[in-house]
């Protein structure tokens, strides 16, 4: 027995380690996150490892995208400067652990809001900044124009750790089609493998398909099929347990959407201070005490609009003008036939 004492001790040590994972310090007081952020001087924001239009870094390391703009808006509101953000690129697998362990304070990474994620794992979703749905991409040359042409034995490339894997199973199962799921950890490898011909189809959120298509060797050889097989409301996430921080992130996003509704842009925000409409005046910090409840000054929302712009500007700059999804579809304001509708700032 004593022959294997060494192995046995390492086993015991291992068991001890299992119970000793640490996250960050105890006793979350009232918005400790806000206090820490102001002390550090930057917002810690988790983003994707590169999804054009949502969160993508250029060669110089500047991040752009609609998800990035949510973090910038929070930085503008809390610190007065939209550039004071530290971006942490995360894989789908790492993202929630990074947030719950306190490595980041906002997760703005094309993340689908679902019941189990909201209720189970210590996270709170604050809103939706992009209404999406899962779709399929195929090679044009395959002649497939609809998911109804899928046959037994089809191979589908995708990412692990996403709702995609679950939806895909539901979809193929309900149609009685046998399929081969090929799931990679990183999106770049999914694209490379699909592009090389490993899979017959590539499935993820349609916005993701449109964005990744631009990375293919020859984007024109691929089409996104018209069917949408799931609801994917994407939005920013915060840790559970700091309701003030949660409110700050939620209302930073809401401010961007409502500013578009009232026609306030980064260019005209200052001049809107003298508007006749009290709702507009509240959105640019010229009426009411809209920041006090968060422990912020009264012009926090004005700074968001001036430095980051309203939701429409952000969408146009990142998604429409880059040719990813020129048509806003459901992500149009409720007043213009879309489903973007946020509670009023008052």
């Amino acid at each position: 027995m004593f022959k294997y004492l060494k192995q046995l001790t390492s086993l015991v040590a291992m068991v001890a380690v299992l119970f000793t994972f640490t996250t960050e310090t105890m006793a979350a007081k009232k918005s400790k996150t806000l206090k820490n952020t102001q002390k550090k001087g930057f917002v810690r924001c988790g983003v994707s490892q590169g999804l054009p239009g949502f969160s993508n870094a250029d060669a110089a390391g500047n991040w752009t995208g609609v998800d990035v703009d949510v973090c910038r808006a929070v930085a503008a509101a809390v610190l007065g400067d939209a550039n004071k953000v530290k971006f942490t690129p995360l894989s789908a697998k790492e993202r929630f652990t990074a947030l719950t362990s306190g490595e980041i304070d906002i997760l703005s990474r094309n993340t689908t809001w679902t019941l189990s994620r909201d209720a189970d794992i210590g996270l709170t979703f604050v809103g939706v900044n992009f209404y999406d749905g899962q779709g399929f991409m195929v090679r044009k040359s395959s002649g497939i124009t609809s998911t109804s042409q899928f046959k037994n034995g089809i191979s589908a490339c995708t990412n692990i750790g996403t709702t995609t894997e679950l939806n895909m199973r539901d979809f193929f199962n309900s149609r009685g089609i046998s399929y081969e799921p090929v799931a990679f950890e990183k999106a770049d490898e999914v694209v490379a493998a699909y592009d090389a011909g490993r899979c017959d189809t590539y499935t993820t959120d349609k916005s993701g398909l449109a964005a990744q298509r631009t990375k293919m060797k020859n984007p024109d050889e691929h089409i996104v099929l018209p069917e949408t097989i799931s609801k994917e409301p994407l939005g920013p996430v915060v840790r559970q347990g700091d309701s003030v921080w949660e409110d700050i992130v939620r209302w930073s996003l809401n401010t961007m959407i409502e500013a578009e509704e009232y026609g306030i842009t980064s260019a005209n925000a200052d001049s809107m201070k003298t508007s006749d409409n009290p709702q507009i005046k509240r959105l640019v910090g010229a009426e009411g005490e809209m920041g006090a409840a968060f422990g912020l000054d009264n012009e926090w929302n004005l700074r968001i609009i001036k430095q980051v712009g309203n939701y429409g500007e952000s969408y146009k700059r990142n998604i429409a003008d880059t040719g990813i999804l020129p048509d806003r579809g459901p992500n149009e304001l409720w007043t213009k036939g879309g489903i973007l509708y946020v509670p009023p700032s008052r």
Partner: protein
Amino acid sequence: MNFKLKDIGPQLMTVIAVVLVFGFFTYNAQVNMENRGIDFGYGFLSQESSFDVQFSLIEYDGSHSYFRAYLVGLLNTILVSVIGIFFATILGVVVGIARLSPNYLINKFAAFYVEFFRNIPLLLQIFFWYFAALRALPLPQDAEAIFGVTFLTIKGLYVPAFIWQNFNIFFYSIVAAIIAIIIIRIQAKRLQETQGKQTPVLFISIGLILILPLLSFLIGGVRLSFEIPVLKQLATTSFIYEGGVSLPPELIALALSLSLYTATFIAECVRAGIQGVGKGQKEAAASIGLTPNQVLKLVVMPQALRIIIPPTTNQYLNLTKNSSLAAAIAYPDLVLVFAGTALMQTGKAIEIVSITMFTYLSLSISISILMNWYNKKIAIQEK
């Protein structure tokens, strides 16, 4: 009993410090998890997993439990490790001996191989073999048949499936052959020790293992037929093979890169082992009239193995742990399936990471116990 405080003092303080640190971290984790409303528990293992896996040795789909998904990942890890260890050992021994070859070309080629493959990071090699394979291999419809029945394509290697009749009789014939060989070996050894007679054990063994199964075909009623993969069209330009057995390119690329990488280290262990046997031993063996083959088999190898086995054990452990890089190329191993997808779907980070670590530790310890046993067996037994 006169314990001196200055003797046990430092040890005592170290133990107290370790306990305090562990205690603090445990308490901290508990408080934090409670604050964020995260439950701790292993109950999720029996829940339905609701995700599918590309490649599995046991029957599995999303309607099975997370525990079943864990087993799928574990078996896939073991599979690729066993394949990797098998080929790495063969290649390592060949290259290790080749490095000592007096033939300049063989010698230099082996040296180049070792230096090249052990100095490139493994992850890079995995990517290289995977994406190089994906680029180089043909689409299913363009694949040339190998021996008319096997197809190597971008979607995997398709080989014929064996369809047996009376497989159990065939199986028993193999078992009988193996038992017979063991008995003959023991007899041959006794004959050698008592009367100094040598028996051609190798030829008898080969004969037995061929003839007995052959008899099972001729008179035992065993029949074997093949199911050959057939091309099937899914859409205008997309095809697959149906029937037969398919090995995914991810498995092939991973096993290949793990073998090529680890073989370089094993080759060095083998070279060190052989060079570690004193020159006088070989000369003495030659001087009593042993042939070069007998020198290698009876004098050099038994001594070299003692030097080779311990570091080679390390390489086996490394290979097993390195197989976790599978996640990068979509081979559904333990890390991808369990510490990847299952972790994401359940959010049980601490539980799943701890189970995964524990599993790798157990795998490593099993290999190390096995190799220690083997090492002890071949160690010099002083009589």
